[in-house]
């Protein structure tokens, strides 16, 4: 695997955070492939997260991108009080490690931290994540993202913009 694709993958992940911070939902969605799985598992015990989104609990699970589109639809209705006003967010991602897949995809492990600020209250989530990055005719896309939220006592709300 060349450094070139690794650098481009990191740029894509950083760009994802920027889209969310700028509330550019359409641009954010376009970073994902249509079949991208998006998964935030729930915690099972102290050190273990759930490992099967079909039978166990998750915090968020979508088998493909349409679920993310539903969330954006909801945000765009501007009638969900939990998202009014939307928090100002700051996504940070670091500690990248790369794991080339036999099919040409690149799995990128990273650490992340997102601050949210809304109505004078600061909230934060942090954790680890895996992005599955796929070369397509349309450039690199996110074909899957699994997000481990380490602080899962959730104050009020967690949404795609806060992780």
């Amino acid at each position: 695997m060349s450094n070139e694709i690794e650098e481009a993958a990191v740029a894509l992940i950083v760009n994802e955070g920027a889209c969310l911070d700028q509330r550019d939902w359409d641009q954010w969605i376009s970073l994902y492939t249509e079949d991208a799985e998006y998964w935030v598992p729930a915690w099972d015990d102290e050190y273990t997260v759930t490992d099967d989104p079909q039978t166990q609990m998750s915090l968020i699970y979508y088998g493909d991108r349409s679920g993310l589109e539903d969330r954006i639809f909801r945000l765009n209705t501007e009638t969900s009080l939990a998202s009014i006003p939307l928090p100002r967010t700051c996504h940070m991602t670091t500690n990248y490690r790369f794991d080339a897949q036999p099919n040409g995809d690149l799995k990128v492990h990273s650490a992340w931290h997102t601050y949210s600020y809304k109505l004078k209250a600061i909230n934060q989530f942090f954790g680890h994540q895996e992005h599955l990055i796929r070369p397509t005719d349309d450039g690199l896309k996110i074909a899957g993202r699994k997000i481990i939220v380490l602080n899962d006592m959730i104050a009020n709300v967690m949404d795609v913009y806060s992780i």
Partner: protein
Amino acid sequence: MSIPLPSGPDGYIKDDRANSEFLVPRKAFTSPEVLAAEREQIFNTCWLYAAHASEIPKANDFISRRVGGRELIISRNAEGELGAHFNTCSHRGAMVCREKMGNTKRFVCPYHGWTFDTGGVMVEQPADTGFPDDFFSKGTKNLRSVAKVDTYRDFVFITYNPNAKTLIEYLAGVTEYIDIVADQSAVGMEITEGNHEYSMRANWKLLLENSADGYHGLTTHATYFDYLQATNGAFRTDFDPATMAGKCVDLGNGHAAIEYGAPWGRPVAQWVPQWGEEGRATVDELKANLVARCGEDKATRIAEKNRNILIFPNLVINDIMALTVRTFQPVDAGYLEVNAWSLAPSEEHPDVRKFRQYNFLEFLGPAGFATPDDVEMLELCQQGYQNLPEPMWNDISKGMSQAQNGVNDELQMRAFWRQWNKLMAA
């Protein structure tokens, strides 16, 4: 204990049946003294939901969690008998168990090593001198057990009150509704792995009221209904909107429920087009089995109706597009921590389990399409109370002038508050 609430002929509430007006004092949501009194007079006297038996199925399984403000170890001993002990060492008080769940033969106190079995019996300690021979054999150094533990249809309840009446008496009319939940499986319901933990800056009674409040649905959850409307096949095509009016019942001892037609898919046995033809065959078979087991009428009630069930004071079972078991910890008058699980038939078909968990996450939980909006409303109420410092009252009169209450009325909340008042004014 003196409670800083205005007291009148009805106690701490105003229950004016002649004028169909029901009022509760806002200070009951904001006062630390009221919460302290609630701990004494409600959480220390009632039966409290502690766990579901499926969380600790085998001998020596345990969970540790807070129930009614105190940390407990809820476990099965080596013989598989259920028990609940205060999580504090009989030596000098350290918390003995720090894991959320597991299976073990022994709990070893981390401070000096006093060791207890899963039935709470003190079995050894590391020193070989300093105690008389029979010191530990008298039973006085065992972990202290809660006053009573009992189970109804796999829901495990405890009480700190040695004089509490039996659990079955306490549950009164709500057993009918717990049965409807438990009967959704031929072999037993189970808590699915993983849970949701979330917090809100709101009083615990706001959550109780909200959990069975039909009146707020179309306003607070407008965005959810917009979304469902825009989703192909999310509603049953032959749904009769008249069934949405439903009913609201007072089940005694502060328990209550609302029950109403479900427009959406219910994994127990109500198919919607979104689940496809293959899903239809599976769900139709579930319905046929349910009819065979429970008879046509009850099976149809189970399959086609939603139920939001309040079990006083700390359990909510919402049998809606999925089945959630929800309990909570009041940390202070204006702050609450909530735990929620997804309950399912343990023999559930994998395709149907998938629909269930999808439905659950779509509506429920801190990242769902509804729960965060509820939480936001409850926080707005808690904040609103600060803005008018003189004695103010919440109005819970809706439906009081009617013989029957529907889901959009407030009988369920009056049932809760009348019991609250009875215990607090006692």
